[in-house]
């Protein structure tokens, strides 16, 4: 994993002589070491203290976050960038409940994450003891699996199992709840490498008959598209995807989590689809006659109303999770397996290619009819899209972008040219405001050689800006760009469109100066008000070796287009409010 290059300074003096396993807590820590974990994100507290004490003797770096939500998001982003589970840790009660948003976020995005929570000693469990919460109960609906550890001799194995489950098959968050007497209890057993429970056997290869049927359907299609979801990235199948699309000349559309799985500068790329996707991608998914959908769960932000989603298309659905097949959109050809393996199977089964020349031409016509575009007259305030484009041009291709949630997230998604997997790190399924900054911290630690830029909204940034203290302490070279419209803009956009312009509780006339706020934390603060300042400030912020925040005062009236109203028809995307 790329985290191997990480070299964050240990935050406290640690005694790094390897310690014999004496307690459950030692076994927990050894289990993480056995799994190759290098960074743990967390916050201390009473019930988790034995594990922290065991960590004192480990070479693993612990990143103390300002809030447990930050720990979960940082670990989630770390997992997204490296592909292996990020690890977060918190004490019982409020520590554990503060993790829940981040765990739920990872669950919606199938991100690999391991959460370890302290728990009151088993003799107090169920008695409403100080800082007791039924953490396993609370997190059960938002974890792939969770465990209550009840024995010092097996607790290391529990952590290993949690790690293996988070990592294998359809990835996701897992949790182990660690009562204090269990982590304090005696054991000398090394838990060994992570092992899957024997009831869990994720599929690898798809049924070969189903593959040949799908290949036949694809080969006879006239208007085929490939819809690449997050599963392509998780399965490391981008190369297979590109080879397949190029060989058979099939246009490729990515979902939001699939962004980066196929390079947008490729001529077959129609870029991004869904509520704020490109017009051309949404036209193509509406009229296609055969869709190869890989590693996507057909979220409603992508499909709009299911009645109008690709209604002429035979659907070939590749997914490692059988439960995704026909959950929202009926699959004509379900291919259950690992995306990388199945794409290879499919490539081998293709007998000829579909005749797509005129279809590809049609897609190009749509590209010129509906380009991603915005107006940016000099005498108006700075447009957010322009800021995103300038950053895109001034940074390397492998720059990692994180975001909060709202309009800024959509502009970042729309106006960045995505060419590499694992560079787009955002909260897709849960849509969690406040994700951007802690995610930037996790991403930078996971990939210290890559630039990390966080596009944030003023509302989203306010939710987790305390994590700047961590970025400063760890001296992380990240750039936060607050696209500041003094509003929770996405809400205001919906109020403009669907609630008669009544801006109930969506305007923030009282936000701080984010550049000054950054300086208070010890970061560098910048501010942009006019186009003339853009270039110079971006270069100064990127050039600064450490965390910086640019408070960009953008046009508060700017809204995100194209737009498909929720539950609407993708092919009827609006380019202006008048078309909604």
């Amino acid at each position, binding site marked *: 994993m790329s985290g191997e290059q990480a070299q964050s300074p240990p935050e406290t003096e640690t005694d790094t002589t390897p310690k014999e396993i004496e307690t459950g807590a030692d076994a927990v820590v050894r289990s993480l070491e056995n799994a190759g974990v290098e960074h743990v994100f967390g916050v201390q507290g009473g019930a988790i203290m034995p594990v922290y004490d065991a960590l004192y003797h480990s070479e693993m770096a612990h990143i103390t976050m300002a809030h447990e939500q930050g720990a979960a998001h940082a670990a989630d982003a770390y997992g997204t960038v490296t592909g292996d589970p990020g690890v977060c840790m918190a004490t019982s009660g409020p520590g554990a409940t503060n993790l829940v948003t981040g765990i739920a976020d990872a669950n919606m995005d199938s991100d690999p994450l391991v959460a370890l929570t302290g728990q009151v000693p088993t003799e107090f469990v169920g008695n409403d003891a100080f800082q007791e919460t039924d953490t*396993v109960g609370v997190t*059960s*609906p938002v974890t*792939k*699996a*969770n465990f*209550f550890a009840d024995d010092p001799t097996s607790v290391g194995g529990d952590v290993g199992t949690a790690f293996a*489950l988070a990592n294998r098959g359809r990835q996701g968050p897992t949790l182990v709840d660690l009562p204090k007497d269990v982590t304090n209890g005696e054991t000398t057993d090394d838990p060994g490498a992570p092992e899957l*429970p*024997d*009831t*869990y056997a994720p599929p690898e290869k798809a049924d070969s008959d189903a593959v040949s049927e799908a290949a036949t359907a694809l080969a006879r299609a006239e208007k085929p598209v490939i819809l690449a979801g997050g599963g392509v990235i998780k399965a490391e199948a981008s190369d297979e995807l590109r080879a397949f699309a190029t060989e058979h000349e099939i246009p490729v559309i990515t979902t939001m989590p699939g962004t980066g799985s196929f390079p947008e500068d490729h001529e077959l790329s129609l870029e991004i689809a869904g509520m704020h996707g490109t*017009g051309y991608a949404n*036209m193509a998914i*509406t*009229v296609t006659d055969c869709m190869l959908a890989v590693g996507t769960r*057909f979220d409603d932000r992508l499909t709009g109303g*299911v*009645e*109008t*989603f*690709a*209604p*002429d*298309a035979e659907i070939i659905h590749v997914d490692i*999770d*059988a*439960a995704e*097949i*026909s*959950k*929202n*959109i*009926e699959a*004509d050809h379900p291919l259950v397996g690992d995306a990388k393996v199945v794409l290879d199977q499919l490539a081998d089964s293709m007998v000829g290619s579909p005749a797509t020349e005129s279809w590809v031409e049609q897609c190009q016509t*749509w590209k010129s*009819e*509906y*380009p*991603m*575009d*915005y*107006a*940016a*007259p000099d005498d108006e305030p700075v*447009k957010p899209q*322009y800021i995103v*484009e*300038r950053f895109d*041009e001034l940074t390397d291709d492998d720059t990692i972008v994180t975001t909060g949630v709202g309009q800024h997230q959509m502009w970042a998604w729309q106006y960045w040219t995505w060419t590499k997997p694992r560079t787009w790190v955002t909260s897709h399924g849960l849509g969690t405001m406040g994700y951007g900054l802690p995610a930037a911290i996790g991403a930078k630690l996971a990939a210290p050689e890559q630039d990390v830029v966080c596009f944030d909204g003023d509302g989203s940034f306010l939710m987790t800006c305390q994590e700047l203290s961590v970025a400063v302490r760890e001296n992380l070279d990240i750039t936060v760009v607050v696209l500041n419209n003094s509003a929770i803009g996405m809400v205001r956009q919906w109020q403009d469109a669907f609630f008669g312009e009544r801006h109930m509780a969506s305007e923030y006339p009282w936000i701080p100066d984010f550049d000054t706020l950054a300086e208070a934390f010890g970061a560098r603060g910048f501010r942009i008000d006019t*186009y003339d300042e853009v270039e110079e400030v971006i270069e100064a912020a990127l050039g600064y070796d450490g965390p910086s925040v640019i408070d960009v005062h953008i046009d508060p009236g700017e809204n995100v*287009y*194209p737009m498909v109203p929720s539950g609407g028809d993708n*092919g*009827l*995307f*609006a*380019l*202006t409010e008048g*078309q909604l």
Partner: protein
Amino acid sequence: MSRRQNVHRTGLEGPPPEERLRPVGRRNSQGIRIDPEIEAEHEPRRTTISAYVNNEPGVLARVSGLFHRRQFNIESLTVGPTQNEGYSRITLVVEEPDPGIDQIKKQLSKIVPVVHVRELDSNPVASELVLLKVDGDEPDKVQAITEMYDGQTLDAGPRTITVQITGEEGKIDDAIDAYKQFGIREIARTGQAALARGEEETARVDERHT
């Protein structure tokens, strides 16, 4: 290059929504492509699903949480140990359209300690137990009904009689109907337990899970 020079949105030049190329087909609310000739929806049906699970804490909570969270329509759920130590069988009676039933099976299979899930065919060996507490004014008549349904009297006092009936669901429903004449005070039903008929195995389980 950035597009700041543009003062107008050239994007507006593409056809507006009402003039765009349109598909001919449609899907229904279940995401199924509709054949324009026969516009069919899946009707709900009742079926029995059996899950063979690792007997560890929290399995039942995960299963019931799943049903709650995904809004599946559950009629009954029973659970109890099997001949194999450490394993339990959960029997679920559900009423859902076919896509819902498929989802239930797949979602159940995803739960890590669940070893095997299957839908039993339309006529499994199934049985349920009900306890009925009725007014004791006419003990002879109550006794007659109890005998008719092969039941047992578990408790008889001057004012109430409590009986037990076992059998498949229809029989239980009929028995309850028959007792109504005496005035039913309370009912406790267990929900169905079921196994596949004949030699057929209810769960396909390999040696590790026996």
